[in-house]
């Protein structure tokens, strides 16, 4: 009895001394701009405000998806290059403390040429948003938002820590533009005051987007689902627009709604239609069991009348079967392209294993090498700083397979 007591005491004391997990510090550098230009599906150009990944890196629309693992200490370093407009960053759903909440009245703002820092701990693994909270209705409509994905503590491809695993992951951020607001922003001058009341025009959106893209822009953007039957495909859906999203999955995808707002659902819902209100996020696990070609319908409903304003179609192409010799060639999509040097790769059909992603300029000079563990299918993000505008070659090498993609880096 006494020996058992001593043993238990030892376990308790020593257990307290052993850290459960080495603490990681994840730093993201961002720059806020009011000078972005985005090409819409019909060729129209629209001005937007947004965030660039890296100091003085040009903005992307939507903002870059940020990643961390549950429990990581996150440091966000920000530079404001907005020629007058103050900004904040609100970590939507991450339940940070007041000082880091990004609300002008209770936290802090950063003005032109000012550097600021947010510090917080990555919460539960899940899907979150970030957006500017200054004159929120305007700054959000102008494009100052993006997704924040928190992976499980071990960084594994699971929906949450010890949650269901997936082969492939998609991040879909839905929003709309009312172009008239962008042509003449309700609040856009050097005398922007934080607390001043101001008039906003009637909201009549005319562009409806998934990850900033619509119509024919979507199929080759990395938003589409290219996968094999019997894969688990995890789709992270967020709505940062001012309309209600109705998502309709083809029944053959066997959609299961398993999480919302960064938390697992106590009761997973098996349903092929999902409504997502502004600010909500959902995690949907897809598990096709047959080959097919179809689309996910993303509809945008008026919040006052529920009248659909638009439907976008996101391609779904299920070819081959996991575990069998795949009849399809490995496929890699690089996006955004053109971009600013930071890019994502979405792939399927690669042999699993450790591989390299190398960046070369047109003179054959190697600019950077990344080493990654490749699953059969997946998506990953790569950041290269200080690339001058021009054409680069991105070479993916894994287990004897080699794929080369061309990347155009644009000037600001």
């Amino acid at each position, binding site marked *: 009895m006494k020996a058992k007591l001593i043993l238990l005491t030892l376990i308790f004391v020593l257990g307290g001394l052993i850290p459960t997990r080495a603490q990681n510090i994840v730093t993201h550098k961002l720059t806020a701009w009011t000078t972005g230009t985005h090409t819409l599906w019909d060729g129209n150009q629209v001005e937007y405000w947004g965030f660039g990944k890296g100091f003085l890196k040009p903005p992307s629309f939507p903002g870059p998806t940020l990643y961390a693992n549950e429990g990581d200490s996150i440091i966000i370093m920000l530079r404001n290059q907005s020629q007058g407009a103050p900004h904040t960053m609100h970590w939507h759903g991450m339940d940070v403390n007041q000082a880091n909440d990004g*609300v002008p009245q209770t936290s802090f703002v950063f003005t032109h040429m000012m550097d600021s820092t947010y510090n917080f701990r990555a919460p539960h693994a899940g899907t979150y948003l970030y957006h500017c909270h200054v004159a929120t209705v305007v700054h959000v409509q102008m494009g100052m938002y993006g997704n924040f994905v928190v992976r499980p503590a071990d960084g594994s491809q699971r929906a949450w820590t010890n949650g269901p695993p997936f082969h492939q992951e998609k991040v879909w951020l839905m929003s709309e533009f009312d172009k008239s607001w962008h042509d003449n922003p309700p609040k856009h001058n050097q005398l922007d005051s934080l607390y001043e009341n101001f008039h906003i025009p009637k909201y009549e959106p005319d562009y409806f987007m998934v990850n900033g893209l619509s119509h024919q822009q979507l199929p080759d953007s990395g938003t589409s689902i290219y996968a094999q039957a019997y894969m688990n495909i995890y789709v992270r859906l967020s709505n940062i627009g001012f309309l209600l999203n109705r998502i309709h999955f083809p029944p053959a995808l066997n959609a299961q709604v398993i999480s919302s707002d960064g938390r697992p659902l106590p009761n997973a819902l098996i349903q092929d239609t999902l409504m997502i209100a502004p600010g909500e996020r959902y995690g949907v696990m897809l598990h096709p069991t047959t080959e097919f070609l179809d689309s996910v319908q993303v509809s945008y409903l008026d919040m006052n009348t529920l009248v659909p304003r638009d439907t976008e179609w996101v391609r779904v192409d299920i070819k081959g079967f996991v575990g069998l010799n795949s009849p399809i060639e490995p496929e890699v999509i690089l996006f955004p392209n053109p971009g600013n040097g930071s890019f994502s790769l979405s792939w399927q059909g690669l042999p699993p294993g450790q591989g390299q992603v190398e960046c070369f300029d047109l003179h054959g000079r190697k600019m950077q090498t990344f080493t990654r563990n490749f699953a059969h299918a997946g998506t990953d993000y790569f950041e290269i700083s200080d690339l001058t505008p021009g054409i680069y070659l991105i070479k993916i090498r894994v287990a004897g397979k080699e794929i080369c993609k061309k990347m155009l880096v644009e000037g600001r």
Partner: protein
Amino acid sequence: MKKYSILILFILLGQMTFATRVSYTLYLNPGTFLAVDSLTFPAYAFNLTGTYNRTNAVLKVMKGDTLDLILVNTDTLPHIFETRGMGVGQVTLPPLGTQSQSIPCPDFGVFPYLDVQDFPKYQAMGAAGMIVVREAGNFKEFYWNVREYQKDWNEDLSLGLPVVWNEYYPTYFTLNGQGKPDIPGDATAVVTGNVGDTIRIYVMNSGLSVHSLHFHGYHATIKFALSDPEKTNWSKDTVPFKTLSTKVLEVIPDKPGMYPVHDHNLIAVTGGGIYPNGIFMMMQIQ
């Protein structure tokens, strides 16, 4: 042995809650809505007096109680009183007439009541409130009735003119009848408390639009959801409300601070087209 039996009986009696009858006199009042920009328009509300007040009354009972209502129509037009989710029928209210209704309240939750005459005419004009059936417990409780108004619709509807329902574009967004600058004065709405408190917020969307309430700082657990019960026990930071839907949200703050709660249809954070306004409030946790 006898002594112990008496003791046990006393303990059991102490734990029992006794069903009671709770009486309210509820007036349906026509009146004039004073908007945040000082504009006015005709509106209706259910109040506890015969004078129009833009805040619809919250009728509170305990689970198991019976709600005895005396319904007074102060309008010169007929109306129809209806509750949702309570299992009782409609009550026709003749012009300037009085009726009564008894409503058993066996289940915990929030249940809408409204005027369904020429539905949804009078709902659009403001006449919809909530019956809150509470559970016993040590809760800090708050009440949010969110909705919106389209001024010219209220004007047309009050004149008996038709409106095109699928062209609804409201410009006033309210919580308990008030927009942002006035909400801080409503102690029944503004969430205050301490770290570790169990805060319960009884919420109803009495408008026609969908509202999407976003909490800063904390997730809320859905303890009751009338129209989408599959969401019970979900933990959310953003909670949508369809028309006439209700929820009971529970927040247990884990840190102090001032955190906003606002509609994330950001158009609803305006009033009369002016930002900031509308459905926005600050939670204050010590």
